[in-house]
Structures are given as structure tokens and as C-alpha cells.
């Protein structure tokens, strides 16, 4: 299970990580470009989101339709995402077509047309996306929770804010591109049935002459936990709870992960058992560990009809706090079993591996081997997990609710 990833950093700073995989016909890539929403100019949140659409509307010698046709003909299953730190471009296809697809992405990132005459259409499309998100309270809740639980600018909504869209201009998006879409700090992860030497030469050809741009660092703002209700005439009350945890790069990350796993790592985990199975309070309940480079939060969600919402919030908060009273060895063993099985199954997915190696490089500056992760998972004990829980107690909750009526948060805020 040891990783065979080869890593190569081009002279301009672009890092390429290639992990060849046996017994697969496909190959996948994950390209992380450090131009996410955290870099949106003040008062112009949505700039990165507009860029992620506009950048695909023609590049190099191809116009928008030709570019799309070229990628479709390569059978590329592609997706674009706007993250807090990165714009993400990922894709997968049969392995022998991947080099051609990477060459096209060279044009997209280095020579996009960013057509000014299509700017209004893209901004209008984004505005409608944000309006549709407001019509779905669960989606809206997670945006509002992230915004309040991370110090600024790390909670900046990735898809922007309706009231700021009118102030974004075509020129501003062009500036964002020139300032942030750059090789230094960009990461390209590739995994699947590929030859690393061939991929390296394709990448050198496509990205080798791409010039560096100096980096700018943002300064973190303050953060205080809040309790807030947003009125909505929804059927359910949507409840979001956030509290501090340690990020992926921290030495205690896996113990933090296990603590969340005991809460929400499967249908036998505590939140599902206590809130849904024993009390029938909700259909959907979960908690995940969400890590940015230097900040991490546990983000919990529950959706329930208004008259049962207070009880749902109370039980969920009490289960989170009850972790500190102890955990059973069997609870930890189930977390370990899930993690080990997931690690092995990840080796069947080129898309997952490409994403993992790129993410590892961003957070750690290296690629963890599957053996190493397995070792960390196996070495967890009830004592180490409890030590973590006591050293990082669940408190100072940020609680955001969307629904017909506000709720009371008891004992959560210190």
C-alpha cells in the first residue's frame, strides 16, 4: 500500500504529483490554483466565482464552443469548483487521453480569452445561482455558518454575496486572474493508468513557460462565536453548530478526526443513534471536520420541523459535550475500521487519489503514503482521543439556525 507518487516542482513553482495506479483504465487530475474566494477584493465577493466560469469561455486558439467540444471529445468528465483558497479544476477520462486534456488546461490557465462581452451573462448566471441557494435553506445555512465560525477572510462565501455582485466588473475579474492564477503555489495532482515521465513532459510543455507572479498574504481578522437566527418560512428549522478543532497539518489531526468519527462516523455513531434512532427527531444529522490551512472547525447539521427543533438542538449539543465523559473502545474500533476500508477503496478511484495527493501537498507540502495514514489510524487509542477532547473541549459554539422561529442555546456559550 505504499505510495509511489513522483513529485516534480517546475522552475516556476508549479508542483506536479503523479501517482500511477495498477488495474485501472482511467486517469484523473486535480488542479488547485491559489485564486479562491479568500482573495476576493473587499466588497466584491463573487470575483473568484465569476472567474471560474469566464475562464472556460475560450482559450488559446479555441473559442468557447470549440474548447468545450474539444474537452467533450476527449471524454473528459470535468468539474470546476470555487474553494476558499483555490479555484479547482478536475477531470477524468480513459488514461491515454489525459495528456491531451492537460495540454488544453495549459491554454485555459495561461491564455484564457475572458471575453468582456460575456461578463454580464456570467454575472447574471451567478446571481441566479445565489438566488436559488437562498431558496434552499439547508444550503444557505452552511454558507452562513462558515461565514460566522471562521475568522475573516476564511469564511468568505465561495460563491459570493448577492449585494456585492453589482460592484464586480469585467476589469476586476481580469485583475484577479493576472494577480492570482499563477504557477507558484499551484498544484497539479494526477493519478491513474499513466506514465509519470510522459505526464511530466506534457506538463513541462504546457506549463513550463508560465511566468511567476509575486504572492500577497492576507491578514486574519478577529473571530467571536455567535448565536444567530435567520427567519425563513421553511417547513423545517435548519440547525448549524460549529466549534474549534485542529487543522490537517496539526500532529493531533487524526485524534480530532476520531473524536468527530465517534459522533458522526456511521449509522452506529452517537448523533445518528441518539438524535434520530432513539428519539426520531430528524432525518438528516451529521458532523464533519472541516480543515483550512491554519483553522479547522467541526461543522454539525440537523434539520427538523419547528416544534421539535429546540429538543434537537439541546440533544445534539449535549451529545457533543458528553464526548468528554469518555468513549468506548468499540466506538474507536469502528472508526478505525471505516478509515482502513476507505483507504483501500480509495485505491480503486483515480479521481479520489488525484484529489488526495493534491490536497496533501497543499496542506503538508508532501504526500502521505497510505501506509503512513494507516499507521496513524491504528495507533489511535481511547486515551489519546480523550486527551485531545480534553485539550480542545467542545465549547464556544457558533450556532446558526434558519427557519420559522429562533431557538435558545443553553450552556453553549462561555
Amino acid at each position, binding site marked *: 500500500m505504499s505510495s509511489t507518487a513522483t513529485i516534480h516542482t517546475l522552475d516556476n513553482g508549479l508542483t506536479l504529483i503523479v501517482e500511477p495506479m495498477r488495474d485501472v*483504465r482511467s486517469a484523473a487530475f486535480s488542479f488547485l490554483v491559489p485564486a479562491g474566494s479568500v482573495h476576493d477584493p473587499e466588497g466584491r465577493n463573487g470575483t473568484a466565482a465569476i472567474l471560474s466560469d469566464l475562464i472556460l469561455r475560450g482559450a488559446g486558439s479555441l473559442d468557447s464552443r470549440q474548447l468545450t467540444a474539444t474537452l467533450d*471529445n476527449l471524454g473528459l468528465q470535468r468539474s470546476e469548483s470555487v474553494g476558499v483558497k483555490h479555484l479547482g479544476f478536475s477531470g477524468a477520462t480513459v488514461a491515454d487521453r489525459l495528456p491531451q486534456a492537460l495540454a488544453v488546461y495549459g491554454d485555459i490557465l495561461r491564455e484564457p480569452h475572458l471575453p468582456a462581452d460575456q461578463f454580464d451573462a*456570467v454575472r447574471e*448566471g451567478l446571481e441566479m445561482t445565489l438566488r436559488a441557494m437562498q431558496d434552499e435553506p439547508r444550503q444557505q445555512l452552511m454558507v452562513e455558518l462558515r461565514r460566522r465560525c471562521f475568522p475573516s477572510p476564511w469564511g468568505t462565501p465561495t460563491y459570493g454575496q448577492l449585494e456585492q455582485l453589482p460592484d464586480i466588473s469585467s476589469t476586476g475579474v481580469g485583475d484577479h486572474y493576472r494577480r492570482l492564477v499563477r504557477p507558484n503555489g499551484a498544484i497539479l495532482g494526477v493519478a491513474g493508468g499513466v506514465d509519470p515521465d510522459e505526464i511530466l513532459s506534457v506538463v513541462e510543455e504546457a506549463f513550463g513557460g508560465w511566468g511567476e507572479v509575486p504572492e500577497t498574504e492576507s491578514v486574519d481578522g478577529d473571530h467571536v462565536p455567535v448565536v444567530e437566527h435567520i427567519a425563513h418560512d421553511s*417547513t423545517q428549522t435548519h440547525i448549524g453548530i460549529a466549534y474549534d478543532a485542529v487543522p490537517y497539518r496539526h500532529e493531533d489531526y487524526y485524534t480530532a478526526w476520531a473524536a468527530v468519527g465517534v459522533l458522526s462516523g456511521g449509522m452506529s455513531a452517537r448523533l445518528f*443513534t441518539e438524535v434520530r434512532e432513539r428519539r426520531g*427527531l430528524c432525518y438528516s444529522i451529521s458532523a464533519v471536520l472541516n480543515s483550512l490551512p491554519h483553522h479547522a472547525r467541526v461543522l454539525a447539521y440537523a434539520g427538523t420541523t419547528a416544534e421539535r427543533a429546540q429538543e434537537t438542538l439541546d440533544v445534539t449539543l449535549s451529545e457533543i459535550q458528553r464526548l468528554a465523559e469518555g468513549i468506548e473502545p468499540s466506538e474507536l474500533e469502528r472508526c478505525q475500521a471505516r478509515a482502513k*476500508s*476507505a483507504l483501500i477503496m480509495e485505491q*480503486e478511484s483515480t479521481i479520489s487519489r488525484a484529489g488526495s495527493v493534491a490536497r496533501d501537498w497543499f496542506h503538508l507540502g508532501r504526500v502521505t503514503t497510505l501506509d503512513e495514514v494507516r499507521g496513524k489510524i491504528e495507533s489511535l487509542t481511547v486515551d489519546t482521543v480523550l486527551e485531545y477532547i480534553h485539550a480542545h473541549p467542545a465549547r464556544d459554539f457558533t450556532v446558526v439556525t434558519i427557519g420559522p422561529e429562533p431557538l435558545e442555546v443553553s450552556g453553549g456559550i462561555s
Partner: protein
Amino acid sequence: MEFHETTLENGLTVIAELNPAAQSVATGIFVRTGSRDETEDVSGVSHFLEHMAFKGNDVYTADDVNRIFDELGANYNASTSEEVTQFYAAILPEYLPTVIEMLSTLLYPSLRQDDFEMEKKVILEEIGMYDDQPTFTAYEQVMQAHFPTHPLGRKILGTNDSVSALTAESMRQYHADHYRTGNMVLAVTGRANWDDVCGLVDEHCGDFPEGRIERDTSVPPVGGQTEVVQRPSSLQQHVMQLAPAPAADHRLRYAAELLGVIVGDYSSSRLYWELVDPGHAESADLAYNDYDGTGTWLTYLGCRPETVAENLERIRSVYRQVNREGVSSTELEQAQNRIASAIVLRSERPMGRLGALGINWVYLGRYRSVQDDLDTVAGITVDDIAQLLAEYPLDGVSTATVGPLTSL
């Protein structure tokens, strides 16, 4: 990749597509039952039963069931559609014996009264959750508008009223009628030994009750109605339309999949370039859905309320042109490349392959390999598409809308 098939003495069909190079194994039981098989007085019972499956039997409690699956590190779940209820898990190969035993436990739960009452609350919350998703509401409403006199038009989850009124006794009866070997197939994909599979299913599934309940697959009359769900505080308007399309066993069903991609995929389709790329609509999609005996073209439009009329006219104009002129060979080839690549990627993982294997068997009663699917997709011609359009033109016959508008 090798295919195996056997039928147990009790009539249970077992199929497997085994791959010694895989890291994992996936297995599932596909039961040919869903909301279309319900009568109005038990609307929602198929889906409710899927939840009750996890409540255990005389040997295992509900806690045991969840605990054991989690102890295996299984990636497991269940789902219910109009026509199929499926239970499935992907695990490491050494856990196949336990997971087959657990799947057999899921299929024949005790259906205890107190579990039933508790789970009813969860189902009512699930209905509430979907109520807050306008596209889901629009889908339920358009199915009702299109199939007003047919059970396909009923909600998979049932309604607050039908679920509240449901009794454990009526659920037990429905279960006894539908959970019979003639209505199901057990499928395995990935790394496993066929003899082991046969031994395990014999041990754990050999006592499943025999029998088969027939489904009425006659073509239901099309409603052609318009349903309006007004939500004054919504910002966007969501519109769905349905029109007749080929049934699941139709020889042109793959042509229909391709036409859906060419005309209505979310990126680089005709609707995308006419409505989404220029910023007229947030979404404008066409999808092909197939059922036993019938099928639908499903159009979805999401846009500002004030532009619904002009956008519906744009969609009609695209459909008129396609119905009249068909598609170009360039468009077809582009769609064939996309679908072929999607099939290869999905089939690479045992869990990705399981659904296609099981569902094909439920609808066609025979095996189709990945290569069969690839060959069929590659063999479709523009003439096939023309034939398809002559028989099933693109249209929006029945309509539902959710948003601020009071009428369309």
C-alpha cells in the same frame, strides 16, 4: 471480468461479475418494488419499509445492524424509487460472509410496533426536508400532473397524511406480498470467489419465500395538466415538464440517453448554449427517465420568475428544431465520447458497477457487460435518433412549477 449466474431452489437469482484485480467487493439485493406498486391507502409504504429494514430481526436489534455494518467499515445504504428498492454495501473482500448475512437480515426485518412508530417520525421529517427543496417539490408535482390516474404519479415518500395513517399491519402485508424471490436479484461485483458466493447465499438466503407478484405495465394515460405551487418568498421560479419517452426495455433507450445529453446536458448541450451560456436561465436541462412500460422526457428550467415565459419559448424553439431536423453526426459523436468515458469510469469500481448490473437485470432479466453497453452506445446513428424523435418527439406535455408565480 467473469460473469456468473445461478438460481437457488427457492427461485432467488444470484448474479456476479467478478474481478480478481479489484480491492473491494460490492453486493446488493434489488427488489422490484416501489411506489408504483402501492395502492393509494398505503402510499409511501415501500420507502418506509426500506427504513424499517435497518431495525433488525429476532437475532439482531436495530443497534446491532448499524454496529455490525460499521464494524466492517462498510460503505452501505439503501434507496427506494418508483420501481426498485435496493440494499447494498461495499466492503473489503474478507467481510463478504458477514455482509451477505446482514443483507439477508435487512430483507426480512421483524417490523416491531415500537420501531414502526419511532421511524414514522423520521419519515415525516424526511418529507419535511424535501419540502424545503423546490426542485424536489416540482418533481413530485410534475409526476402527479403527468400520471394523474396512475401510481407512478404518487409520491415515493407518500404524504404526511398517508404516512401518518399507515399501520404496521398493512406494512407487514405489503412486505409479505412483495418481498418474494421472484421479485428480486442478488448481485455481487468485484473481488470474490464464485463458489464462496454460492455457498453464502445458499446459507443465508435459501429460506427467502418463493413467489412473484406481477406488475401492471400497461401504458398509463398522460395527464397533460399544469400544477402551480405558489411560494411568495421564493426568489427563483422552478419549472418541470414531462412528455412521453421510450420504456426501459425499448430498443432505442440508449438513443434516448444520447439525445438527452445532446439536447439537455447541464454543460455544452443545445439548451445550455441557448439558455444557460447567455445568462437567460440558471439551469435548463433535459433528462430521459425510463420505467416499466413507459418513459419520460423531463425538462427542468430554473430562472427568474419574470423570464419564465420567454425561457419556455426558447426551450420549445430548441425542441421544434430538433424534432424537425434531428441532430448532427458531430454532436452525436461528441455525446458518444462523453457517455463511453462515463461508463468506463463508473464501472472501474465494484460499487459503481453494482447498480448498473442489478438494475439491468431487474428490467431486462439478462446480463449486459460493460462492453455491451459501450458497443451499443457506439453503434447508435443519426437515423436511430431520427426514428426516436418520430416516435417520441421532445415536448413538455405536463407541467409543474414552484415559486412566486400564481400561474404560467
